[in-house]
């Protein structure tokens, strides 16, 4: 049975701002869904509507088959982890985790048992008597998760829970969240603007752009077959190279003198794209175009080469990603081939994949 269903959900704020026009999403039981998109695209708005912290302006929200549009947050059987953790500062870690159970009228023994077992799972046993301000950022994050977990909710909601942590801890917690979620099997809706986090955590991703779902799919679907240039640019790091071009009888015409042969019935302006990791360095005869190198970023395991391709009227910036260390000279030319199986072509007008 599908667990959470968003049916034509929309949000208009009281000031008239149309944050989310309409979204349809069906989440299966135990699924880990990540909402990803740039700042201000409506991720938090959507999550908060599911939580019951924002009213739903339009559409139906179903949890376990029941319509919950007008239910209080407490009655939706959800738990949420906030970006700033929102731990009650005047309560101990134990009291923070026990608060929700207490409000439900659980007995002291049951509360103690549940809190202890979750604390053990998260390694919080030693911290139960501390106040939040006596904890490190990572520990606070754990407590916030513990508080969500003790209530054993139907749905977990996370709003950028890792964005206040340093890079290393973020990776560690990311792995941990995924493992915990697998173990508990709780349906999860997770918001982030970090595409790496999104790719690694998600069973399915929802890419939001200006309140619209650009594409919904597995991380590999989105990587291999982005539906729009927006998704293409958003998923993958560094971003996909996207160049405005024309599709004619001879193929993709990038400029007066440069075209990539392709047989396709579509005619007109298109966006042509290829990921930095799919460009091959070749010798001059086999190359599709030359890159004038402007900057080299060596990361040891891989090298990012930034440069421009001369398209006559304009210099188009292109990034190439090569494995291993490379030390090409700045301002020299790098001959590149773009294998056709890695091309992404989008209609420039409809922004849809061709």
């Amino acid at each position, binding site marked *: 049975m599908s667990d959470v269903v968003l049916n034509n959900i929309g949000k208009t704020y009281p000031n008239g701002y149309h944050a989310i026009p309409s979204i349809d999403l069906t989440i299966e039981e135990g699924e880990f869904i990540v909402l990803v998109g740039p700042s201000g695209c409506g991720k938090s708005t959507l999550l908060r509507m599911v*939580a019951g912290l924002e009213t739903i302006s339009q559409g139906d929200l179903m949890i376990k088959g029941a319509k919950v549009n007008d239910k209080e*947050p*407490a009655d939706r059987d959800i738990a949420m982890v906030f970006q*700033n953790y929102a731990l*009650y500062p*005047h309560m101990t870690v134990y009291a923070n985790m026990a*608060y929700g159970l207490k409000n439900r009228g659980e007995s002291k023994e049951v509360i103690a048992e549940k809190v202890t077992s979750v604390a053990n799972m998260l390694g919080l046993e030693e911290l139960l008597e501390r106040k939040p301000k006596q904890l490190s950022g990572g520990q606070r994050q754990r407590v916030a998760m513990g508080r969500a977990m003790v209530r054993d909710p139907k749905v977990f909601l996370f709003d950028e829970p890792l964005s206040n942590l340093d890079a290393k801890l973020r990776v560690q917690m990311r792995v941990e969240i995924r493992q915990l979620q697998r173990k508990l099997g709780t349906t999860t809706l997770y918001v982030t603007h970090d595409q790496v986090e999104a790719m690694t955590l998600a069973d399915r991703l929802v890419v939001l752009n200006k309140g619209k779902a650009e594409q919904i799919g597995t991380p590999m679907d989105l990587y291999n077959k982005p539906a729009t240039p927006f998704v293409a640019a958003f998923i993958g790091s560094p971003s996909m190279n996207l160049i405005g071009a024309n599709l004619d009888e001879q193929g993709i015409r990038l400029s007066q003198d440069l075209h990539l042969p392709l047989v396709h019935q579509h005619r007109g302006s298109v966006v042509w794209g290829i990921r930095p990791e799919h460009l091959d360095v070749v010798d001059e005869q086999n190359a599709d175009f030359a890159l004038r190198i402007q900057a080299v970023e060596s990361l040891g395991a891989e090298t990012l080469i930034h440069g421009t391709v001369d398209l006559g009227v304009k210099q188009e910036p292109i990034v190439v990603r090569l494995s291993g260390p490379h030390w090409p000279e700045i301002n020299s030319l790098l001959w590149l081939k773009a294998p056709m199986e890695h091309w992404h072509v989008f209609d420039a007008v409809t922004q849809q994949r061709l």
Partner: protein
Amino acid sequence: MSVYFPHKKLPYLLVLPQLVITLIFFLWPAEQAFEQAFYQEDAFGLSREFVGFDNFVYLFNDPQYYKSIWVTLVFSFSVAFSGLAIALWLAVMADRVIRGKLTYQTLLVWPYAVAPALAGVLWWLLFDPSMGPVALWLQYFGVDWNHFLNGDQAMTLVVISATWKQISYNFLFFLAGLQAVPRSLIEAASIDGASPFKRFWTIVFPLLSPTTFFLLVINLVYAFFDTFGVIDATTQGGPGVSTATMVYKVFNDGFIGLDMGSSAAQSVVLMFLVGVMTVIQFRYIERKVEY
């Protein structure tokens, strides 16, 4: 950071007016009162006689003095409690209002700008047993209101007039305190299944405790030392001595009863209290209340 003044005299010149005022209106009278407390003066102020601690001994053996301490305590705690409770309630309401927020807040701050004596007269008029609208209205409902005869009613009246003014001040602090409570805490609590009532008492109110404690001290100090004007304008300490606080008694004994020695001794006791309160204020408020 240190500031360097090229002129050696300028800084002294700048603080001089403040120093002169403190000297003339505070230190000098304080010194006079301190001296006076050890003398017995005749009613016309023509002669006086050194009596040592007699004035204090007499004072602390006087049941009337204990009565005034009791009146002060009842009065001060009533003022502080009702002032805090009403202000908190208003602040919670104003915090919820979205439209016309500023108007409410401005209106609620006005009473603070009214002079204490004026506030006293206002309430005196409203509650006047023979023509005050509130008094007549109470009488209509069968409450026999006459604060000239009934000591408890007189106390109620002075508490109301003293509280009324203080509500604005408390309100501002509570409102600021409420607005400083992170929204996400309230949201987390509502997801955790706490009703609005429970959210307030288990989350918001504990988080306001530093503000509440600060205001409690401020209000007690106000009620102790700064309500002479209000009492004088409404009940003049009466009926009998039922609303004569310690401060009012200093005035009454000194300027009406012309017992300068006792009045001065009472002033010294009050100065001592001010000192204690100041220490409390600095010690605890500066350090903030831990939650």
